[in-house]
């Protein structure tokens, strides 16, 4: 089918045309020729989606932001978000095509035959109703069993996800649970009415690795125990690598490649899948991470022919003209690429490099001694010591609440509630940025986690990037603009963005602007606070490559705060592992990763999802 949107004109009929053979799928779920379009313009959000979920099978649906993965996920419940509608196709579950049922019948199916676990379960649970009541209510709605029976099932459901089913727990409100517990309650509720099909929409985003691992194991056990067909929607291939039976990779509203997990990770046949895999850091080895040039096109901006051709390293003229049909390349392995047979062999080890060797000569730039940080009267960071050499990257790793960001903020002068000694180039720094001299402020630059918050939306990129130069007397006027162009070039952005405001840039582009602003001050030390965690993996890959180049070419030292141990292996020279505000282990990355001494580090390493 051609990729044009002409056919998908929205009509009042929500349901697709009658398709022969769309019934009788038995158990599991079968999605046939699904198309979801924007209501106003009729532009496709996703199209030509065929997907089968077998009972007891977990299918990972992987894609970057804007790929349409969540749209496909909710379409399994015959639901589309406001502004979009399902215009074509069939979703067969339990012998019914959900798209052809009336709303009442669909409602009866939702929850009972097909359940949904949202990304943020905290928002899905009613904060004013006790956990036990919410679970029992679900069964009351389904009119199942007696009152005592329902309560017993609620307890059993909680036990299945490893939570206590006692009175005390049932009487809790959602805010009295931890993030992992909330997610497991949401899982228990999804499984309670014994659904045949389960859609999980990034249910572990925002959870610590240990908790994430626990939730993933629970999902896997429950799906196997109850013969549930599950669709696991995520942006993280590493998560899927340990969980799914089959993997579907989505790009720009299409399934680019689908196949058994081992096939996808051992013999990826689509250049996009390969590029994604190349962008993911490994725990077992350092990698030269590569990003994918350009960005994922949104609905209405998708190119003709193969949708990936404009970012593909192997694209030919043909790719721009011909829409690649799905081709079977192995057992149950289907790919949409004209040149899949001609691609060079690929290995998961591609891009592996040697870990940075411990160097004897270290020219220490930043020294932190006995740093204690407080929130009001509570001490949150205890006796942290740091020495950072020129052109060295030191990673702070830990789970949320470990104090890694707090430490970084204290060093960067963003908080003043700390004691201890921070020395930069041999002289001591004041606590807050305002107390430091301009020369000191210039030498340490801080890059924030969320580029959507760290750039003023009312300023142009030129104003944002030239400001530090004016402030520190590095350049002004025309000279500053020229330097801004150079810096933007260094972060792989063209001079056209100078006049833009941030709302015209993607997340990755914004983060590049934030890096350019930091570089504009010509710093010696960059403090990077989780700067890739809000970005897609392909963007993360290119940002990491950029930082590595800056380190080598400009001799900039970095404090790299992250929760991702795999990322540490690829970017950092040394690492400090933090737990509850204390450094529990530190050393060269290769030593800590290969031979961890502390139980906490071992647990973190064991729970980090990774391909290798």
């Amino acid at each position, binding site marked *: 089918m051609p990729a044009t949107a002409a056919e998908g004109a929205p009509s009042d009929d929500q349901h697709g045309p009658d398709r022969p053979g769309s019934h009788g799928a038995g158990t599991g779920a079968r999605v046939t020729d699904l198309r979801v379009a924007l209501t106003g313009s009729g532009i496709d959000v996703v199209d030509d989606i065929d997907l089968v979920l077998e009972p007891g099978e977990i299918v990972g649906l992987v894609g970057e932001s804007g790929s349409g993965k969540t749209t496909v996920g909710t379409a399994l419940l015959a639901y589309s978000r406001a502004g979009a509608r399902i215009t074509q196709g069939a979703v067969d579950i339990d012998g019914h095509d959900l798209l052809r049922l009336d709303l009442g019948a669909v409602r009866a199916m939702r929850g009972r035959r097909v359940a949904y676990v949202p990304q943020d379960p905290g928002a899905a649970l009613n904060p004013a109703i006790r956990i036990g009541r919410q679970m029992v209510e679900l069964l009351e709605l389904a009119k199942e069993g007696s009152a005592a029976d329902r309560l017993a099932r609620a307890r059993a459901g909680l036990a299945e996800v490893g939570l206590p089913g006692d009175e005390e727990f049932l009487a809790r409100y959602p805010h009295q649970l931890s993030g992992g517990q909330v997610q497991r309650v949401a899982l228990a509720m999804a499984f309670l009415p014994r659904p045949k099909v389960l859609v999980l929409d990034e249910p572990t985003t925002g959870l610590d690795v240990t908790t994430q691992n626990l939730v993933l194991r629970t999902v896997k056990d429950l799906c196997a125990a109850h013969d549930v067909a599950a669709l696991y929607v995520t942006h993280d291939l590493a998560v899927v690598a340990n969980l799914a039976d089959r993997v579907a990779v989505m790009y720009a509203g299409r399934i680019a490649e689908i196949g058994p997990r081992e096939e996808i990770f051992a013999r990826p046949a689509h250049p996009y899948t390969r590029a994604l895999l190349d962008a993911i850091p490994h725990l077992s080895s350092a990698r030269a991470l590569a990003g994918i040039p350009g960005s994922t096109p949104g609905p209405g901006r998708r190119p003709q022919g193969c949708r990936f051709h404009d970012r593909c390293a192997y694209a030919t003229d043909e790719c721009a003209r011909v829409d690649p049909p799905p081709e079977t390349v192995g057992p149950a392995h289907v790919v949409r690429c004209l040149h899949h047979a001609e691609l060079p062999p690929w290995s998961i080890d591609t891009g592996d490099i040697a870990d940075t060797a411990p160097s004897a000569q270290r020219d220490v730039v930043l020294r932190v001694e006995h740093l204690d940080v407080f929130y009001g009267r509570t001490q949150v960071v205890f006796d942290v010591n740091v020495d950072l050499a020129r052109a060295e990257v030191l990673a702070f790793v830990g789970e949320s609440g470990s104090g890694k960001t707090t430490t970084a903020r204290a060093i960067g002068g*963003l908080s003043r509630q700390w004691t201890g000694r921070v020395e930069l180039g041999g002289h001591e720094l004041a606590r807050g*940025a*305002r107390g430091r001299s301009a020369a000191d*402020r210039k030498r340490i630059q801080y890059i*924030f986690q*969320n580029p959507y*918050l*760290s750039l003023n939306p*009312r300023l142009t990129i030129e104003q944002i990037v030239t400001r530090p130069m004016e*402030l520190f007397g590095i350049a002004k006027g025309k000279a500053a603009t020229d330097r801004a162009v150079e810096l933007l070039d260094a972060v792989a952005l063209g001079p056209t963005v100078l006049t833009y405001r941030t709302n015209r840039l993607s997340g990755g582009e914004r983060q590049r602007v934030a890096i350019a602003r930091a570089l504009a001050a010509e710093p010696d030390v960059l403090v990077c606070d989780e700067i890739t965690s809000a970005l897609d993996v392909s963007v993360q890959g290119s940002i990491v490559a950029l930082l590595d180049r800056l380190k080598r070419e400009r001799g900039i030292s970095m404090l790299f705060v992250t929760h991702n141990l795999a990322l540490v292996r690829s970017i950092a020279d040394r690492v400090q592992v933090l737990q509850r505000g204390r450094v529990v282990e530190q050393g060269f990355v290769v030593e800590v990763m290969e031979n961890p001494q502390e139980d906490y580090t071992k647990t973190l390493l064991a729970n980090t999802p990774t391909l290798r």
Partner: protein
Amino acid sequence: MTALLPYLRSRRFVVGLVVTLAVALLAVTGPSFAPHGQNDIVGRPFTTDGAFGTDYLGQDVLSRVLAGGRSILLVSLLATILGMVLGVLIGVVAAYAGGWIDEALMRLNDVVLAFPQILLALLVLTAISEPAWWVIVLLVGFSHAPRVARVARGVALGIVPRDFVTAAEALGESRARVLLAEVLPNMTAPLLAEAGLRLTYSIGMVAGIGFLGFATNPGAADWGQMINENRLALLVQPWAVVLPVLVIGVFTIGTNLLADGVAQVAGKGGQ
């Protein structure tokens, strides 16, 4: 220019703008095409001669209405600007400074807020024998300030903790520049909406002050004062009261729609 587009698509905003501008234009250019001077005696009091009859002194009502808007609109506008500037300054400084400065400013604010707006104005006006027009501007402006301050502080509280403000501080920008270049530009939409609302209240208050007999120039035409002058003959010659009431009403509806439109567009992310 493109920033204005979403506003022009809002019907509320466009209707409000047209009504407001029309009444303002009438008030500014009215005297030049009025049939009589504002203090000309054209006949006996409370007759129905002319388009809208005569008032308590036998002056032409239409002419007086056309002449009586200029001062009230100007005073209201200036008072609104003064109130906005003062209020935004207090609110933004309180939100940015936080801590005890915030507490002190806002508690003082609450004290002033506890008095009805008009009462504060009257308190001063009764003490002054012949108040100049700028005294009314000051009084109305000052009485707006604490109300504006509350709104401005609320908006600023949502912006101050954002990372770009922290980033500016880490660079060592001066506090004034952080406020003016980073915080304030992100507050324009809600503040514009507030300004429209304040303009509405200003007109009501200035008209009210006129009605209570504290007009800046007792002899001159003034919408508020006209209502007071002619209310005794409301049943005999209603136009002398109804006409100024109507223009005041229409104008406040206009400014209100304007404010609503701005708030609506801003709510949709027009900024």
